[in-house]
């Protein structure tokens, strides 16, 4: 294929994608898109774990099922890794940029309608990132597990792990952080993608708050169930 002048002109200068990434608006769109993937995963992950309440054999069978097809497993892992990578890098770059955008802070600054959740997105995000690393080392790889780790014994590993106070505390703190992150994140995601209309804004805010609360409480129920003996080996 010969290179025309037109191709040469198009090739010069940054690509559309890198222009998109360089813009604060484009980065937020990518954060929202990766946020959707992560949100869908968080919901699916929690629902999957709910099988703990239906019987230990069921959830162990589910864990084995997920590992049956390695191609599927690794595809999902790669999608999630890319999503969390794009999301976290964009979030951190935007945060660095906004700190530079106001080099001299106000002596006092009133908050009129910004929620706590919306003002702590970077903090809750970093807590989630740290938790993801710990969580994988704890229950997927097993090296950070409190107590004996048995590969593919999902329920058993949960029960041995949550019999120790430190994993329970770390887990609950991270889920509270996730709840706050999604409280604002799920609402903000719609706006970043341009899906917004005054008539639905209040509803979207309520939906985000509800989803965030259910996800935090649903996940916190697992260590509580182990601690109270509701689920046992």
């Amino acid at each position: 294929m010969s290179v025309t002048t037109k191709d040469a002109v198009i090739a010069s200068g940054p690509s559309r994608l890198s222009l998109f990434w360089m813009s604060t608006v484009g980065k937020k769109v990518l954060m929202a898109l990766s946020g959707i993937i992560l949100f869908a995963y968080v919901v699916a992950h929690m629902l999957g774990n709910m099988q703990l309440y239906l019987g230990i054999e069921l959830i162990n069978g589910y864990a084995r099922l997920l590992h049956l097809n390695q191609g599927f497993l690794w595809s999902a892992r790669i999608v999630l890794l890319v999503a969390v990578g794009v999301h976290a890098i964009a979030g951190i770059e935007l945060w660095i940029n906004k700190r530079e955008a106001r080099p001299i802070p106000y002596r006092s600054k009133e908050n009129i309608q910004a929620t706590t959740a919306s003002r702590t997105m970077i903090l809750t995000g970093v807590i989630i990132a740290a938790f993801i690393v710990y969580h994988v080392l704890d229950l997927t790889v097993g090296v950070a597990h409190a107590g004996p780790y048995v590969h593919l014994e999902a329920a058993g590993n949960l029960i041995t792990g949550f019999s120790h106070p430190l994993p329970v505390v770390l887990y609950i703190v991270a889920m509270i952080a996730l709840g706050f992150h999604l409280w604002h994140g799920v609402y903000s995601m719609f706006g970043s993608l341009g899906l917004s209309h005054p008539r639905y804004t209040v509803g979207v805010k309520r939906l985000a708050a509800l989803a965030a609360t259910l996800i935090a409480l649903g996940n916190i129920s697992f260590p509580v169930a182990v601690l109270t003996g509701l689920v046992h080996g």
Partner: protein
Amino acid sequence: MSANGHGGMKLTLDIWRQKNASDPGRFVRYQVAANEHMSFLEMLDVLNQDLITKGEEPLAFDSDCREGICGMCGFVINGSPHGPTHGATVCQLHMRFFKDGDSLTLEPWRAKAFPILKDLVVNRAALDRIIQAGGYISTRTGSAPEANSILVPKESSDIAMEAAACIGCGACVAACPNASAHLFTSAKITHLGVLPQGQPERYTRVLDMMNQTTAEGFGHCTLMGECEAVCPGHVSLEVIPRMNADFFKGSLKKRDPKAVAGGA
């Protein structure tokens, strides 16, 4: 009733004083006597008379129309852009909202993109450059067009008029925890983007204006809504998702204009 029985009040003001762009600046404390019938800016005029009488440098602050329409005035009072009443410019703020003995902190808009020129006066030329980056719209100038030649749906004209209430004062940037200019730029993009006259350049305009906004060093939008809470034009946060949608579409549609002009 206060001290002298005429609504008189004594205020303590901590005001940001900065000689010029290179001076690091600092807060200086002043006492001023005012009464509830004054506007806030008149109270500062009184302070300046005092300073001039004492042979000190008067306080620099911007104002022009003092009617809340030109967008020239603005600074931060106790952490609130345009002061505690929200939704009006500082020239529309009256001393009846304060009481004897109040302590107020006055600061300029704080953003890298708004360099301080002197005291409470900042350079908002970045907003002008964003407008310039938007370029022209293909509309016929000259004699007034026939009224019904371009039909504008009522809803579009309402949205456009609401967005056009932006007077470019910069309070949205000042209020935003991220020092973002999204409310300003999105208001400008919306008031042209929803009208038929704004369609030909709709998508190039949003890309050019938003890229200029990023280049000026403003922060990003996290949809916290601090901007809409202080906007004297009551521009709604809704203009931002509208801009986001156009930016996304524009990025997908974009052709390199140079390539087209090259015409190979």
